[in-house]
Every structure is written in structure tokens, then in C-alpha cells.
């Protein structure tokens, strides 16, 4: 059976310049969840209005290492409105849950309030009261005393040591040290990135409500089924007893994928009190309640011949992790694939410090990795005396240098060309400090970025309803990437209805299961699943129309029918032409329902559970014959005040290869968002530690500087992608994380071009330039 493109009237929302209908896949349809968000009607997770809601506020450790000696909660308990003060002694423990790989946990209790303190800001108590104000006031009255022990503040702490080698991160081919020693041109430099924070505008929090042994959690979540699994294991109830609800998410950037200890506290408090409990972190608590990006250190050494052709790359990396948790930020990820080299060596250690365990933040690994290699290659260009763009093309990797597999698609050369053309790169004066405007030194920098195409199996339910509308259900989520919109486009195009007639329901773990919205994989996974489910629903619809004796098409003896714009007809245009609603009525059906999933055919129920609640079944991006990545090139202009050393980004042109774009309007927004976060990383963002107490001193949005509107110029993005059939069902690659990768080195390279000073330690603040 065939499906023809939908034919809709001129869309109010505008069409793409290439003629793609706004409502089709690839069209520039405006966000379908937009009207709810711009009118205040969109109700985020913790905004549910529940009867009998109690409010919890956390109390956190004020030392970085030691033991809680005692907690005096008497005054707090006597405070007006207080229902309960929970401490490590009074909270009922939970069971330890498995990790995100699904590794069976040790059979031991889990207490989400700490007695043993391993970082400053650890949850040690919680106050539950009738009102938020009462809980806040009483939390300030909880007195905690400690036996303090020495702590390791960060990577620069003299006690930190060299850390633990992570053998799984080692990548080597050829003889890199020997080739480096023999190379006529050699550079070696160290590159540092500080602790950075996701800082989504919506703070983490939740409402937990028990009804018997059934738990409902309204919580912003990048992964409902993964979090539901954790809650189920913590409370030793069946997975099906836990319902996660997360209709809208106020930003995540990697930080909202896992159930965290504050969630355990709130859910336990709700159980103990027999009332729904709401707990929202304060903004300062969001800096220690979960991990930001780990601070990193890298050394990059490159040896080339006299023309700048790379002979050897030796890379060593270190990232911080916590005292009792493990986080590896893969620092060699871009180093090992960006340029062709016959000899390569990358190794990595992690160092334990008294911090919350670091976590995923937009392009974990690729982001700091690119800062190292893309700064180093720029240094090499000056060393050899050739253009920074030329050295990149000279060492262009025609295949994956690590796996030696063909790229599925790599439009990086096209990205360099399109970006350079639009930016006017050819007019660049090569010498540092050679371009200026009054007392402003002008610098132009370039850097490349990449992010692997992470893939997984997906599932969706598509229904065609009696009124001819189409409903899509999935427990996947939309935190601003546009999931609601692109799935409406996918279903509309596949079934043959208008996007206006599609309702997409997401963010409820009762819907068809979904894996994590992380690693830029969700769009590719879910468009594939919805397309499959919608095709199956369409097949059923057309099958009914052809075969049901009550159908007006029954006498037509047709092999197939065409559904377009919500109407069914024959391909030749003869015979009846009826609406979907009329057809369903004629055959006595009130709906058609299809579940589509992209799991292998012989998958068991256990496989499915594992696929959606862990990351153990994710498909490697180098599986089979191809190596799959998204690519980009950033061209950035900075203006540096010669007297004050202040750096302003004044122009950005980025060309990006994310394969086919399901909705360019929304993809461009995500790319720009990544670039803007990259500008923050390059110039502003840094967690500053108090060395006496191991505290983050700038744990708020006035002191941890994220870009404001006044920091950001207009940004031009150019899509150079082509459909990549090896990366996803509909040809897209990753969008969300790609944009940030390479921005910080492009800015550092521009700053060098402007000032002649190479800053290898982010962020590039004025004291490093004067």
C-alpha cells in the first residue's frame, strides 16, 4: 500500500523555501506546544494542584568531608506548621536501586539523607510542613553538628594526586611517542575546563503521591521509564506501580535523566506522612543536588611534517569525579576522530574529589575534548605558518581514523566551505593583532565540532479516532527540542492528515515506553517509531476501506487507496472520496490503533523492559560498516578591548551537518542554543570553589554567569546535512548537542588572533588577557 504526500492548503505557518510543506517532515511548522507555553497554560510537573499537598525543604551539609555528629531538630519540629523533620535517623530507608546500565544493585538499604559527608551541599535533613514558607523557616532552625575531616577540594588540590587510570578510555594505534619524537614540527600544550553547570531555568523538584502501593511522581524528566524503574526499585514495588508524569520540562541539558536523592526523600516523606509532598530545590541547591560538568585537564601533543601533515597525536586527560561515585568524561572522543593520523595514543585518569558526582551536560566528553584538539590544531597552524582552515583540510579524515570504517556521512568539508564563504574568511588578515576597530582588537577564529549519532530502539502508539483525528502516544518527552512538533509532522505525513489534526501526547509513563532523551538520540528514535506505528495504522485503515463490505470502496476492487488531507480516495481519482471519519462510521469502527516499535522481531518482554529502562541496549555508533557522527564548523569574530581585556563575541556563522532536519525551524533554534551555551562556556561559566570549606561560592544565577541577551549577537546557522540512511529511519543525525561542540575553541582561537595571547584555561576572563 502506498502513501502519498499530504496536500494541504497554504499553511498559515509558512513553508520552507525548498517547497516542503510546513506540516510535512522537514517543514518549518511552528511548535505545536507553543500556544500553551506562551499563554501560561502549559502546566509543568511541579505545578500540579493537589489536595492536601505538604511542602518539603532540604537541609544540606556545610562541610565537605566528615560525619554528622548530631542533628538537633527540636526547635524546627516545634515550629508552626511543621509535620515532620526527616534525618538519617528518622527517615525509613529504601532499597538500593540498579544503575542506568541495569546492573543488579547490592542488596543493602539506601538512605537518601547522609550521615557520612563526602561533599558540601549533601542532603542531611528535610523539613515537611503545611506551607512552603513554614518549611523554609523551620529548615533554617535545624542544627547539624559535624566531625570534620580533611577534604580534597578540586583537581588543583595538592592532595588530589594523579587519580585512577580508566583503561576503557585508552585508544592507541601506531607508535605515537616514537613518531612524535621523530616529527620535525612539534607542539605540546595543556588545556583546562572548569566545573560547569547545566542551570536549566526550571529547578529540579517533584510532587510525590502514594495511593496504597501505587506511587505517582510529577517530576521534570528526560527519561520517565528509567526514573520509574529507580523509584520502583527504591520502594520495592512493581515497575507498573510507579507512574511518572512530566508533560513539559523547563530545560535539562543532561541533568534531568536520573532519579536523584531529593526524589527519594520526597517520595519517602509522602509515604511516611500519607500525604502528597512537593519538594523543589532552591537555586543554590541545584549546584550540589546533582552534578554539573566535571572539571577537566588535557595535554595534547601533536607532531607533524614541515607542511603540517600530522604524524602523531599523544593525548592525556583527567577529569574529576566524586569520592564514592564514578563519572568519566570521555576526553579523547574528538581527539581520536577529527584528524587523520598514522600514530595515536589517548589515555585518561579520573581523580576523586569531595564533590557531588559530576553528570552529563550538553555533549559530555565531546565538548571538552574539542576544546583541546581544536585549540591545539590552531596552535599548529601558527607554528607551521598556514591558515587555520587550511591545516584542518590538510589533515581531513577521509574515514574514521580510529575504527577505519567509512563515515556514514561527513559534510564537514562542505561545512568549512559554506561557513567560510558566508563569514568572509578569505578577508582575514593572518597575523595576530592585525585587525582592529579603534581600541578594539578584532579576532577571527574557526573550530570544528562533532557528536556521535547515538541510536536506540523506540516504540509508539498511533490511533486514528472516530472524528478522523490522529493521536500519538509515547512516554518520551519534550524539553524544548520539539518532540511534540516533529512527531505531529511525522504522523500527519505518514497517515495523510493535517498536522492540526494530530494530537501528540508525551510525558506520561503510562504511554508507550521510551528510552532516555539524551545523547541527541530522541528525534531519530521516535520519528522512526511513530513512522512505523502510523504506517501500520494507515495499512489497517486502507485495509478496512478495501475489504469491509460496508465500506464505500468495497465495490471498487482496488489494491490500494490514497489518504491525503484527511480524506480517502482511489489513486486514479475515480470512485468515492470520503473523509476518514465517514469511512470509520460506515464500517462501524470508533478507532484504529497500532503500536509500532523498532525492536528486533524476536525481542522478549525482558528485552523491552531493559531497552526502555536502561541504556544497556543502545546501538553503538560504529556498529556495522559505518561510523556515524554529526559535524559542524564555527566561524566566530570577537572584539577585545585593548585596555580592559573584555571579550565580546560580535559575529557567529556556523555550518552544521545533522543529516536531514525533521523541522529546520526548531533545529536551528537548538543549534543556536548550543552555540550560546558555548559562548557562556568560553567567556563566563566557572564554578568557583572556596578552598577552606570546599563550597561552591557562586551557586546562584547572579554569580554563576550564564549568557544574557546583551551578551549574544545575531547568529547565523547553515544546514549542510544530507539524509543519512545509516543513522536513522528518516535520515536525521543528532542536533541538540552538536551546536556547543567547538564553540569554545573557536572563541579561544579568535581571542588569540585578536590579541596574540593563547588562553588554554576556560573561561577566557579579562585577567587572563591583561
Amino acid at each position: 500500500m502506498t502513501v502519498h504526500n499530504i496536500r494541504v492548503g497554504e499553511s498559515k505557518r509558512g513553508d520552507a523555501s525548498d517547497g516542503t510543506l510546513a506540516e510535512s517532515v522537514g517543514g518549518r511548522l511552528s511548535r505545536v506546544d507553543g500556544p500553551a507555553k506562551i499563554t501560561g497554560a502549559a502546566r509543568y510537573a511541579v505545578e500540579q494542584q493537589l489536595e492536601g499537598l505538604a511542602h518539603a525543604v532540604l537541609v544540606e551539609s556545610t562541610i565537605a568531608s566528615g560525619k554528622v555528629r548530631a542533628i538537633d531538630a527540636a526547635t524546627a519540629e516545634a515550629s508552626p506548621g511543621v509535620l515532620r523533620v526527616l534525618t538519617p535517623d528518622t527517615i525509613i530507608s529504601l532499597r538500593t536501586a540498579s544503575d542506568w546500565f541495569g546492573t543488579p544493585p547490592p542488596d543493602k538499604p539506601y538512605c537518601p539523607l547522609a550521615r557520612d559527608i563526602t561533599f558540601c551541599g549533601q542532603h542531611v535533613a528535610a523539613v515537611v510542613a503545611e506551607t512552603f514558607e513554614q518549611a523554609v523557616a523551620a529548615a533554617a532552625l535545624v542544627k547539624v553538628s559535624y566531625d570534620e575531616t580533611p577534604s580534597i577540594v578540586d583537581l588543583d588540590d595538592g592532595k588530589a594526586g594523579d587519580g585512577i587510570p580508566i583503561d576503557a578510555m585508552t585508544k592507541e594505534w601506531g607508535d605515537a611517542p616514537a613518531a612524535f619524537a621523530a616529527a620535525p614540527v612539534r607542539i605540546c600544550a595543556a588545556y583546562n575546563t572548569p566545573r560547569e553547570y547545566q542551570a536549566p531555568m526550571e529547578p529540579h523538584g517533584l510532587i510525590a503521591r502514594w495511593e496504597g502501593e501505587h506511587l505517582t511522581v510529577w517530576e521534570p524528566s528526560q527519561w520517565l521509564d528509567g526514573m520509574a524503574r529507580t523509584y520502583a526499585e527504591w520502594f520495592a514495588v512493581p515497575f507498573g506501580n510507579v507512574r511518572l508524569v512530566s508533560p513539559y520540562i523547563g530545560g535539562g541539558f543532561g541533568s534531568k535523566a536520573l532519579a536523584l536523592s531529593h526524589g527519594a526523600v520526597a517520595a519517602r516523606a509522602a509515604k511516611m506522612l500519607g500525604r502528597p509532598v512537593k519538594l523543589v530545590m532552591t537555586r543554590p541547591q541545584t549546584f550540589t543536588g546533582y552534578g554539573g560538568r566535571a572539571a577537566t585537564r588535557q595535554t595534547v601533543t601533536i607532531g607533524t611534517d614541515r607542511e603540517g601533515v600530522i604524524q602523531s597525536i599523544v593525548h592525556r586527560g583527567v577529569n574529576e569525579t566524586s569520592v564514592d561515585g564514578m563519572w568519566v568524561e570521555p576526553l579523547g572522543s574528538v581527539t581520536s576522530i577529527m584528524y587523520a593520523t598514522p600514530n595515536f595514543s589517548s589515555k585518561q585518569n579520573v581523580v576523586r574529589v569531595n564533590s557531588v558526582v559530576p553528570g552529563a551536560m550538553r555533549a559530555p566528553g565531546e565538548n571538552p575534548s574539542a576544546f583541546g584538539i581544536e585549540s591545539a590544531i590552531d596552535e599548529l597552524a601558527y607554528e607551521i605558518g598556514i591558515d587555520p582552515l587550511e591545516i584542518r583540510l590538510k589533515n581531513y579524515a577521509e574515514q574514521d581514523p580510529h575504527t577505519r570504517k567509512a563515515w556514514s556521512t561527513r559534510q564537514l568539508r562542505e561545512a568549512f566551505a559554506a561557513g567560510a564563504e558566508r563569514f568572509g574568511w578569505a578577508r582575514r588578515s593572518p597575523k595576530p593583532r592585525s585587525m582592529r576597530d579603534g581600541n578594539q582588537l578584532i579576532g577571527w577564529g574557526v573550530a570544528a565540532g562533532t557528536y556521535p549519532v547515538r541510536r536506540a530502539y523506540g516504540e509508539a502508539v498511533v490511533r486514528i479516532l472516530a472524528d478522523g483525528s490522529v493521536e500519538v502516544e509515547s512516554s518520551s518527552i519534550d524539553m524544548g527540542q520539539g518532540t511534540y512538533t516533529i512527531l505531529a509532522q511525522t504522523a500527519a505525513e505518514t497517515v495523510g492528515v493535517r498536522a492540526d489534526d494530530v494530537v501528540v501526547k508525551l510525558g506520561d509513563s503510562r504511554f508507550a515506553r521510551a528510552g532516555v532523551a539524551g545523547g541527541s538520540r530522541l528525534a531519530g528514535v521516535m520519528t522512526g517509531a511513530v513512522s512505523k506505528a502510523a504506517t501500520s495504522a494507515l495499512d489497517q485503515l486502507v485495509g478496512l476501506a478495501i475489504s469491509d463490505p460496508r465500506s464505500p470502496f468495497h465495490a471498487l476492487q482496488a489494491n490500494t487507496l490514497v489518504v491525503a488531507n484527511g480524506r480517502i480516495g482511489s489513486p486514479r481519482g475515480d470512485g468515492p472520496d470520503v473523509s476518514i471519519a465517514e469511512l470509520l462510521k460506515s464500517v462501524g469502527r470508533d478507532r484504529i490503533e497500532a503500536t509500532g516499535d523498532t525492536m528486533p522481531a524476536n525481542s522478549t518482554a525482558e528485552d523491552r523492559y531493559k531497552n526502555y529502562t536502561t541504556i544497556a541496549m543502545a546501538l553503538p555508533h560504529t556498529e556495522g560498516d559505518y561510523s556515524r557522527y554529526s559535524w559542524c564548523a564555527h566561524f566566530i569574530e570577537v572584539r577585545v578591548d585593548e585596555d580592559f581585556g573584555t571579550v565580546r563575541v560580535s559575529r557567529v556563522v556556523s555550518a552544521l551537518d545533522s543529516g536531514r532536519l525533521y523541522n529546520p525551524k526548531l533545529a536551528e533554534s537548538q543549534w543556536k542554543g548550543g552555540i550560546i551555551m558555548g559562548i557562556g562556556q568560553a567567556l563566563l561559566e566557572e564554578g568557583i570553589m572556596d578552598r577552606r570549606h570546599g563550597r561552591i561560592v557562586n551557586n546562584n544565577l547572579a554569580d554563576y554567569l550564564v549568557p544574557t541577551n546583551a551578551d549574544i549577537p545575531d547568529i547565523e546557522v547553515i544546514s549542510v546535512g544530507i539524509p543519512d540512511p545509516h543513522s536513522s529511519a528518516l535520515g536525521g543525525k543528532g542536533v541538540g548537542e552538536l551546536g556547543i561542540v567547538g564553540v569554545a575553541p573557536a572563541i579561544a582561537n579568535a581571542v588569540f588572533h585578536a590579541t596574540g595571547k593563547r588562553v588554554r584555561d576556560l573561561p577566557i576572563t579579562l585577567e587572563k588577557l591583561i
Partner: protein
Amino acid sequence: MTKIPVHLDINGQHHELQLEPRVTLLDALRERLGLTGTKKGCDHGQCGACTVHMDGERVLACLTLAAQAEGRAITTIEGLAREGELHPVQAAFLDQDAFQCGYCTPGQIMSAVACIREGHAGSDEEIREYMAGNLCRCGAYPHIVAAVRQAAQEFAS
């Protein structure tokens, strides 16, 4: 803490509440009145997500006690659209894709309406400066500038 009567005029509707004097306008809106369109991002006046209008001027609801709002006309994002018609700033935000996650958006829109009314939307530079008090971590800034420009031009014509 003793509760006091507080009379609030929100989006043209009168509300009588019994509140502790320490309750902020933001928590009164979100926790007592079910008006959750106004967002809490930092509770310290640092992010702008809670921007509402008080007698037509933009204020941060997290730094305003509910009691201070008595006798003043409060407008929140829920009160911006009239009879189902989007306010031109709302329509421009949708057109320009001036948001992603949507959490800062009500505050951005309330700020933008005031920014135009204040006469501070004359150029992109001016818009950037006068919209700089509203953080957007998704990084929709260039599109926010475009939306404010579009709406300002609509008002001017």
C-alpha cells in the same frame, strides 16, 4: 505567624486571601491561586522568570510580597491574551520560535510587552540591553530579539 487579609487584583479579577505577611506575590500566584504561568527560576530576583506587571510596570514577583501588591493592578501571562486572541508579543514569540523549553517564556513575554511600552525597543541593541534581565538557558536570545522587534513594529504601524 499571624495571617493578614490581602486583596489582590489579578488580570481584572478580585481575590481575597488570608496570607502570612512573608508570602511573596510569586508564591501567592503559584501556590494559592493556581496561576502557575508565572515561573519560579531562582526566587532571588536573578533570572526574571517571575516577571509580572504591577500597574503596567514590570516587577519581579519573587521579590514582591503579596501584601505589597494590594491595591495595584497585577497582570500575569494568563491575562495577556484578550478574548482568545494572542497578544502581538505572544504571536511574535510563536512566529519567531523565541523559546524552547518555555520556562522563561512567560517572564520574557511580560518583559517584552513592558520593554516596548517603555520605548526601549528602538533597535536590536536596545532590545538586547532592556531584555537582559530575563535569562534563557535554552539560548533563544536572537529569536527573542526578532520577536520583540516584530511586535514593536506592529505596534508602531
